[in-house]
């Protein structure tokens, strides 16, 4: 029951890290601040980018991430998402 909630929570935490990076944050900084393994962080970043919560930019400094409008909305609506899923019994399978 807790695992998927963790996924949503981890996404929120990563987005908060990106948000505090004033528009440009490197993957190493996310890794350090989000307290995740490299593999897990890669998966979450892939997820975040596919949903459109953040965007990736390639520059001379390397890869950087910035939060999108949708990402900001995710942070502000996080509590509603969790409440909605809990209330309507939409908590996913533990095995997922």
């Amino acid at each position, binding site marked *: 029951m807790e695992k998927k909630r963790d996924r949503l929570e981890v996404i929120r935490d990563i987005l908060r890290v990106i948000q505090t990076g004033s528009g440009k944050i490197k993957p190493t900084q996310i890794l350090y601040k989000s307290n995740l393994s490299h593999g897990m962080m890669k998966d979450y970043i892939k997820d975040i980018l596919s949903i459109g*919560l953040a965007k990736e930019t390639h520059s001379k400094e390397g890869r950087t991430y910035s939060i999108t409008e949708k990402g900001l909305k995710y942070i502000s609506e996080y509590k509603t998402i969790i409440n*909605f899923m809990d209330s309507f019994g939409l908590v996913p399978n533990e095995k997922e």
Partner: protein
Amino acid sequence: MECLHLIPGWFVGLNILLKIILLIFTGVIAYYSLKIYRLSNQKELKFFGLAFSFLSISYFITVWINIFFLSIAGSNIRALDIDDIIGIKNLAVALYILFYMLSFITLFYITLKSKNLKIYALLIFLSIIAITFSYDKSLMLYLIPSIFLILVTYYYITQYLASKNKNTLLVSIAMAVLLVSNLCMISIPNCILPSRYVFSAFLEIIAYSLIVFSLFRILKNGKKTR
């Protein structure tokens, strides 16, 4: 010709109004579910939104059926029946049955917590086969969703017992009321009690009002914590 249900003449206008309210209620639930799905990409939200979208579509079709396709079955009694001739009326009734069934199949599929879409396809296929080849379509139309609703209600009760979430309790009650509403329709022997349709329609309104009330509480709580 097969009769699906009888409606008292005096209730037809009110029934259209009630179904428009249900169309809006289920549409609102679907809208918020799909809106949250777009943010979180949680497949459970997608299916929940789909289930209520199907319900909303079925109520939309019901409104049209009530306006255009009810036949006179006696003094002050209207009937929804399936003609022997293939036409728009039969198509509308078939679509109504399809979307009504799909909504409860989808709700039940969510409770299975399965990632296997073959199970979902199998549930749809078996339900359609059962109703298509049934001699009593009226019975099957409400019996199949009732079976799914028994399991869905049980699921929500266990969810409530585990979480003690008041909104989940409201949803559990709503599903139980919806189940009774469907059971009322099953117990109509050969469409001879149109007043049961009225009772069932009011139970439906109560059930979806409870779900909308839960949604309202969730959104209100979300605004507070923002």
